[in-house]
C-alpha cells in the first residue's frame, strides 16, 4: 500500500564518483513508487536528479575523493522535492544554457544539463551557500500510479 498521505525524507551522502548515481536512481525509484508517483513521473524525477548529481560530482567537486555530494529527497502526498549540494566553488547557471537550435549551437557539446533538469521538473533553483552549490528541484504528483487522474 502506498504512502500517499505521509511525508518521508531521505538523505544520501555520496562520494564524488559517478558510479554512485545508481544508488540515487534506486532511492528515487523505490520512494516515488511508494508515494504512488506514475512511472513516467518517476523517470522524469530520476533523470533530473541524475543530471543534478552528475553536475555536482563532475563540475562542482571535480571528482575529488575528499568531497561529498549530499542529496536530500522529500516526498509528500502532493510533490517530490530534492536538493543536491556539492562542495565546489559555484557555477554560473545563467551562462550555461544552449537554447538556440541553429546548427552551430545544436552541435555544442555543453549546456544541456539545465535544459534537462528544467524540462523534467516543475521548478528548478540554485544558490550558493555553506561552501557549496545547492540545486533544488521539485515535481508535483499528477494523478495516480495507475495513470488515472486523481480528481
Amino acid at each position: 500500500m502506498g504512502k500517499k498521505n505521509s511525508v518521508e525524507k531521505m538523505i544520501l551522502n555520496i562520494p564524488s564518483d559517478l558510479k554512485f548515481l545508481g544508488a540515487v536512481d534506486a532511492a528515487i525509484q523505490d520512494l516515488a513508487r511508494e508515494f504512488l508517483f506514475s512511472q513516467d513521473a518517476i523517470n522524469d524525477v530520476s533523470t533530473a536528479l541524475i543530471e543534478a548529481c552528475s553536475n555536482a560530482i563532475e563540475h562542482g567537486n571535480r571528482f575529488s575523493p575528499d568531497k561529498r555530494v549530499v542529496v536530500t529527497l522529500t516526498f509528500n502526498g502532493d510533490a517530490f522535492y530534492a536538493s543536491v549540494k556539492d562542495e565546489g566553488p559555484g557555477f554560473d547557471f545563467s551562462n550555461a544554457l544552449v537554447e538556440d537550435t541553429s546548427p552551430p549551437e545544436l552541435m555544442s557539446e555543453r549546456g544541456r544539463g539545465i535544459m534537462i533538469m528544467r524540462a523534467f521538473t516543475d521548478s528548478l533553483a540554485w544558490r550558493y551557500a555553506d561552501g557549496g552549490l545547492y540545486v533544488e528541484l521539485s515535481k508535483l504528483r499528477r494523478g495516480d500510479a495507475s495513470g488515472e487522474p486523481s480528481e
Partner: protein
Amino acid sequence: MKITQREVGSALILDLNGKLTGGPDADLFRETFKTLMDQGRRNFIINLEKVTWINSTGLGILISNYANVRKDGGDLVVMRASERIESILYVTKLNLLFKTFENEEDAVKSFTQSAR
C-alpha cells in the same frame, strides 16, 4: 559500460550496455570511437537499447562523435532508444541533429539509401 561491435551492411553497429555518463564510461566510448575512425570506419549506428540512462555529458560525447564523423563524410545514427532517452533527445532538441530509428533494419537501410 560495455561496448560491442558488429558489422551489418555498410554500417558498424555499436551496442552500448550500461550508463552513458561522464568519467570512465565516457572515456571508453570516446576512445573506442576514435580507434574505429582511425581504422577508417565512417558509418555508425549507436544502439541505445541497453543504455539505462544518459546525462548531458553522455550527450556531449555523442555530439562530439557525430561532429567528427560528419566532418569526414560519414554519419552516425541512433537506434532503439528507450522512451526515457527519446524524451531526453527531444527536450535537448538533439532529435533535430541525430537520425533516430526504432529498429535495426531501418537504421541499416538509411546508410544504403544515402549511398545511392
